[in-house]
Each structure stands twice: as structure tokens, then as C-alpha cells.
């Protein structure tokens, strides 16, 4: 068991709780930076994929996990980021400018979209954002002169100061680019959470009334959360476009929106870790499913028969499993495990039980 002695307020304001934790993350950073030298090209590509999911996951986590606003439309903002980035590059904007601009544009679109739906809560907000996802898909088809319609677009090569980065030609470089974006988004996210605005986000999530009574402007704070969230998601969308090489309206369909939401639920709502755990699950799920499928085919001797929809099926099963047995997601499970070992042998089974100690009888509104 570890006791953390704090000698100044900075101990809480700092990025890490204690030195061993900082070393831990440093080690992790070294590992991810060294990854291209440790594994083969295929795996580097997979890792890149996971990072892209993680960026989008952080975007959605900020909105849903920390601000409490469900969104079933985040694929739309990935699309905005992707198309704007590629269209800008096609018009001669250098990549290093186009990528952040794409994020900013996606963020602004997020704010504009957020304004009319700010008053909606829970399931109604989910439905409104779902509609946004569907509409965006249609819009991409209609806006053919820019988006290429159903045919879609092909991502141009990325050029940074004469250095050409290509997902297949130079997978390690593309991995590093994605890693850099991941780290920038992560740093901003982490900083925000230890600053007043991040606390205002969680305050909104837990009680709008008392957040207001503490001086938090609900509409503006929600719009900011939407903007930041959609901005990060837009960055992920742009990277996804380059990762996929070619994309059209179906790349950013409703299924992607749903997958994003499921990812953060499985990873663990309300923590940045959750976005990364979720990204790992989503990123490696296809391989896992392939394994399971081969296993099943082996046992039942199905030969080359494919089972339609098995991917969604397994995905759904995992999700239902989490909601039933571990609503706090993988991160929640990890925290419990860690506490168990830290406190061994003093861990109590009901340590993480919530105390229901009062009734909400009087609610305003």
C-alpha cells in the first residue's frame, strides 16, 4: 500500500500523482515511441489505427464521459475533419496547416450544431445527434462536387517540409504523426481537467442546477465542450482519411458513430484511460473476432462458410456484458484490481459500492 505525502498544492495540481506514476507513464511513452523498431509493419499499422480511435475516443469522452452529453453523431464530425482536410490540401494548403484547421472547422461545426440541441437531455440529445450523423451521410452524397459523392475521395500524400508520409510506404512515419497528434490532444485534455473549465464540465454532468448555482454558464460551457470534442474528433477523422487512403460517405456512417460511443462505454466513461482502453478493444476486435471465427469453424467444421453479422454480434455481446457486469468499463475494473493489490489483504468487497443515503424528493424543474 502506498501513502502519498503531499508537501504543496502543486502535488495535486501536477500532472502525476507521485513519482512512480510519472515514471510509469514515461516508460509507456518510451515504449510507444520505440514501437516501430520492436514490431513489424503490419502491427505498426494496427497501432496507428488504435491511436486514431483513441483520438476520436478522447473527443467523445470529453463530451459524453466528462460533460455528460451523449452523442450518437460523432462520425459526422470525423467526416467534417476528413473532408475539409483533404479538400484544403487539394487546394494547395500545406498539410501542417490543413490538419489543425480541419480540427478547428470540425470544432466550429460542432458548436453550431450544438446550439439548437443544447436544451436536450439524455435520450433526446442522443436522437438529435443521431439525426446529425444520418444527415451528414446524405449531405456528403449530395455535395458531390466537393466530396466526390458516393465515389468518394482519395487522400493525397501527406507532405511535411518535403518529407512524404504514406500509410503504406512509410508506416512508421505515419505512426509517429498520429502519435504526435494523440499526445497533443492528450496534453490539452489532461490540462483542461485540472483547470476550472474541466471541473465545470464534470459539474454539468453531475448536477446542472448546482453547477449554475456556482456560476457555470450552462449554454456556453456545453457549447465549448461540443466544440472541443468535435475538434478532436475532426482531427481523428482527418487521420482516418489518410489511413484508409480512400473514403466516401460510408466510411463515416452511423455504425461508426455507434462504435465510438460503445468504445468509450467499454473503456470506462469519465476517464481518459477509458478512451485508450476502448480504442485497444475496438482496434483489435477484428483480429480477435477472426480468431474466434476460425475457432468456431474449426469446431463445427463449417469450412469456408462465413457467418454474417458475427462482428456486430460479438461486439454487442461484449457491450451488454460490460453494461451488466462492469458499468464502469475496463478502467473501472483496473482501478478495482489496483486497489485490491494495494490494500491486500484489507480489500473489502463493497469498497466501491455507492452509498444511497438520501432521497431526491424535491427537484426543481
Amino acid at each position, binding site marked *: 500500500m502506498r501513502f502519498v505525502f503531499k508537501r504543496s*498544492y*502543486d502535488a*495535486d*495540481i501536477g500532472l502525476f500523482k507521485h513519482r512512480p506514476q510519472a515514471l510509469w507513464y514515461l516508460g509507456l511513452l518510451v515504449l510507444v515511441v520505440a514501437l516501430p523498431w520492436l514490431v513489424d509493419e503490419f502491427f505498426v499499422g494496427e497501432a496507428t489505427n488504435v491511436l486514431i480511435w483513441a483520438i476520436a475516443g478522447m473527443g467523445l469522452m470529453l463530451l459524453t464521459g466528462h460533460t455528460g452529453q451523449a452523442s450518437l453523431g460523432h462520425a459526422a464530425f470525423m467526416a467534417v475533419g476528413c473532408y475539409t482536410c483533404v479538400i484544403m490540401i487539394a487546394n494547395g494548403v500545406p498539410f501542417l496547416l490543413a490538419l489543425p484547421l480541419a480540427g478547428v472547422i470540425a470544432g466550429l461545426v460542432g458548436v453550431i450544431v450544438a446550439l439548437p440541441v443544447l436544451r436536450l437531455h439524455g435520450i433526446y440529445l442522443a436522437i438529435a445527434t443521431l439525426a446529425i450523423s444520418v444527415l451528414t451521410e446524405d449531405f456528403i452524397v449530395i455535395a458531390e462536387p466537393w466530396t466526390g459523392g458516393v465515389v468518394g475521395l482519395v487522400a493525397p500524400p501527406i507532405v511535411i517540409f518535403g518529407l512524404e508520409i504514406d500509410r503504406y510506404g512509410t508506416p512508421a512515419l505515419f505512426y509517429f504523426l498520429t502519435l504526435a497528434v494523440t499526445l497533443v490532444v492528450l496534453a*490539452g485534455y489532461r*490540462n*483542461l481537467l*485540472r*483547470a*476550472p*473549465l*474541466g*471541473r*465545470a464540465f*464534470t*459539474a454539468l*454532468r*453531475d*448536477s446542472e*442546477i*448546482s*453547477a*449554475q*448555482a*456556482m*456560476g*457555470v*454558464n*450552462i449554454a456556453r460551457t456545453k457549447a*465549448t465542450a461540443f466544440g472541443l470534442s468535435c475538434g478532436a474528433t475532426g482531427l481523428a477523422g482527418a487521420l482516418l482519411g489518410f489511413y484508409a487512403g480512400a473514403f466516401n460517405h460510408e466510411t463515416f456512417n452511423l455504425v461508426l458513430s455507434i462504435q465510438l460511443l460503445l468504445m468509450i462505454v467499454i473503456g470506462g466513461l*469519465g476517464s481518459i484511460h477509458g478512451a485508450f482502453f476502448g480504442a485497444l478493444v475496438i482496434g483489435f476486435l477484428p483480429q480477435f473476432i477472426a480468431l474466434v471465427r476460425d475457432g468456431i469453424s474449426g469446431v463445427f467444421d463449417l469450412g469456408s462458410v462465413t457467418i454474417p453479422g458475427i462482428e456486430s454480434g460479438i461486439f454487442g455481446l461484449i457491450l451488454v456484458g460490460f453494461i451488466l457486469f462492469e458499468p464502469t468499463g475496463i478502467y473501472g475494473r483496473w482501478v478495482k484490481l489496483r486497489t485490491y493489490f494495494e490494500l491486500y489483504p484489507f480489500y473489502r468487497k463493497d469498497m466501491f*459500492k*455507492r*452509498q444511497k*443515503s*438520501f*432521497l*431526491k*424528493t*424535491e*427537484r*426543481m*424543474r
Partner: protein
Amino acid sequence: MSLLVLEQVTVRFGGLVAVNDVSFHVGEGEVFALVGPNGAGKSTVFNLISRFYDPAHGDIRFREKSILGLRPDQVPALGIARTFQNIELFEQSTVLQNLLVGRHRHRRSSLVSELFFAPQVRSEERRHRQVVEEVIDFLELQAYRDKTIAGLAYGVRKVVELARALATEPRILLLDEPASGLSLEETQDMIFWIEDIKKQMGITVLMVEHDMNLVASVSDRVLALADGKELAIGSAQDVQSHPAVIEAYLGSGGRAGHDG
């Protein structure tokens, strides 16, 4: 000087007149209590002042200026802080984080500076933290600092809510039933705290409370309401022995005299 003035305020919910032509003023440095049977309109008065409800007519002035044009989130900036009758804390956050949200009205940093955690943000954080630690010391919440609200007992939550309101560094504190559901000792602590808040911190207190023992020990003046109407105003003894007040409590069959 009167810090807070309510002038002939009326609130209607459909056909129900929850607050009926109520006027009173709270002086600077005073502890002012609102009492009355259930449904008298006490919490409604609080929700009016914190701008969650709009009056049908009447005016509310804080430091001579009408606050009716303000949104609820603009009220704390004036130095008006409140607690809720049924505790509205940020359940998934720690006590420390809850109190730090109380500092929101003192936020000066911008979105961009916070994304980079600029030096200015850090120094403001230190300042917020210092104020919050003083409140934690005052209300003896040290043991709960890093505990999540969801796991705390009712009595502690009540204190955390008071702490969060104090962390805003208010001029006036609106306490909605600060002692309801508290044990005898906890109520005794609450009495001491309210006295200190008034005397040492110089904060004006407007509170709603059913526990007449607490009301009598701390308040300078008491206003009794029933069915939205003013019944009597004056010292705790005067109000308690006022025939209209006794009548109202007996009539409601409710919580007369000294219950909690």
C-alpha cells in the same frame, strides 16, 4: 444598510400562489431565518433569489440593484451563494473538486490558457486551492478531502455543500435547511459554524430551518411564512409565540415548535 431586499414578491405556479406579496430585507451582517410549515414557500423564495424562478411581480434587489435581469449563473458573481434543501453535489467528484467548482466565479483564465495550463492558470489554481483549504480546515473536512461524494454519509454531504458555498467567498449565504437530517451533535456543530460565519467571516446569512432550537440560537430576526403569506417578523421568541404562527403550525398538523 440592507444587503438584500425583496419587495412585494409574488410567485405563481399555475393556479397555486406559492409566494404571496412577500416583502422583507436582510441587513448586512445579519442572520435572518425563514420559518414556516411545509409548502409555505420558503424554498421558492430561495429559488427566486438565485433566479431559478421568476416572480409574477415584485422586485428583488441586492446592494440596491435589481437582480431580476440576471440568469442563475450570474448570481454567484454578486456574492450570493446557496445550498439546496435536498443536497445537489457533484456525485462523481471528490470533496476537493466539489469545493473547487465553488471557485468558478473567480475564474479569470481563458480556454486557451487552460488548454496549455499556462503559468497564470497554475497560480490561480494555487490561490483557489488555498481558499478551499481554509474552508476545509474551518469545517473540519480534512478526512474527506479526496473522497468521492457518492460514498459519503448524509451528514457529511450537508457539510460539504456548506463548504462549497463558502468556497465561493460570498457576501450572503443562503442555507436551505442546513440542519435537516443531522444528528444532535452535527446540529450543534452547525450552530457554531453559522455563528462563526457571521462573526468571524462577516458573511450575512439567510436561512430556512425547521429546527426552532437552531433558529433561536443563531438568528437575529425571523420571518414566518405560511401558504406563501407573511405571518410575523421579529425575534425568534416573538415569532414563536405569535398567535398567527401557532395557528398556522397547528392548522397544518405539521411540525410545530421544536422538532427537527
